[in-house]
């Protein structure tokens, strides 16, 4: 995947996060690639982590079974995009 494809994936992912999580007053362009999604950054919580896991399953065919793996993946846009590129089945 070249840099353009990666950037497109990140933009698509940000749009999906805003839509799936119904983020109020947040635009996709407001989310920085290295901004933590949970805690101090975007402020997502445990229910959002479930929503993100479902998002990855539905949109990219990725099933995260191991919670430890999930914690490493769902850090920021960069880590999720990287994981999608390596593991997507659709």
């Amino acid at each position, binding site marked *: 995947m070249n840099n353009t494809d990666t950037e497109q994936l990140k933009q698509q992912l940000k749009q999906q996060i805003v839509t*799936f999580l*119904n983020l*109020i007053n947040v635009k996709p362009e407001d989310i920085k690639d290295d901004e933590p999604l949970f805690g101090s950054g975007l402020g997502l919580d445990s*229910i959002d982590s*479930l929503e993100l*896991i*479902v998002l990855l399953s539905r949109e990219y065919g990725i*099933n995260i079974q191991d919670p430890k793996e999930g914690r490493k993946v769902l850090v920021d846009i960069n880590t999720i995009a990287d994981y999608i590129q390596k593991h997507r089945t659709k």
Partner: protein
Amino acid sequence: MLLYVHQSSCISPQQTFGAKDLDSLQPAVNNAFRIIEPSYEGIPTGILRRMGKAVRMGTGAALPLLRNRATPVDGIIIGTANGGMEDCIKFLNQIIEYQEGMLTPTNFVQSTTNAIASQIGLMTSNRNYNITHVQRGLAFENALLDAAMLAADHKAQSFLVGGVDEISAYNYNIDLLDGWFKQETITGNDLYSYDTPGSIAGEGCAMFLVNSHPDEAVACIKAVEIIHSSDPAWVAAALDRFLLHHLGTQQPAVFMSGEDGDSRLHAFYQACESKMNAQASVLRFKHMTGEYATVSAIAVWIACQIIDSAHIPTHMVKRSGGGRTNSVLIYNCHKEQQHSFILLEAVRP
């Protein structure tokens, strides 16, 4: 039965929340009366974004009544026919769309009818009595009866009681196909102009802080009666008994009719209206709210405003009476089967 209303709030298609203005009539849009959504101050953004409309308006209307209380209310009692139907259908559609695979929790959590009362309980850390009544067109009336029985048994206790329902695409389409909404374009007061079946869809929420103490109360809910019948004469006879039992030879100052422009319900409303003498003002309110199962909650809220302010918005008047506003009888009929009488009286002379 005596239930004193001390505070109330209402989110509706009219200006009823915050700066109230019942004299100005907000029109229906696309043949539906949808609520004017406030900014929901006090609900954290992270929670607000997960709320369906019914939960959002129910919580948004309840919190201002509960926020500054020294002690928590002793019960949260909500009436809703459908709860968060929109989220319920989203969840069920997900099951089909994703072939019973992985489903998201949010729509499911929001879709249960008791999500409104439970969310109010969660947000106010209230672990007391928490219940939801779901008897379709009599859900709010049953919530009132529940609160009245509790207040009678526990004199020192206060309760939050309310009625909430939203327009969802699902129930709107089903009711439209079933002939409960008019084909004609309706904007407001013209609702009563067509002699055709059906009314106009509505949604809304009204919340009340009630107890058994008259001190500083806005109004008293003196009696509630619920009836199941498809016979207008039977309903009118029940109203006769209701009036005799609760008012003796007196008449209410105001009769608030739930008339909704549906030609199939005219016989019920006409039969009850004919029981009122010339001294009773006859009012209508469905051109402000639209028709839905728990609309009587907003009718009670409007009645409280009329009693408290001694002012009747002109657009509500079907027939002027003696000008008094110290007692209001609400009659509502839901889908030709479920009927209710709610009698309110002023507390102050």
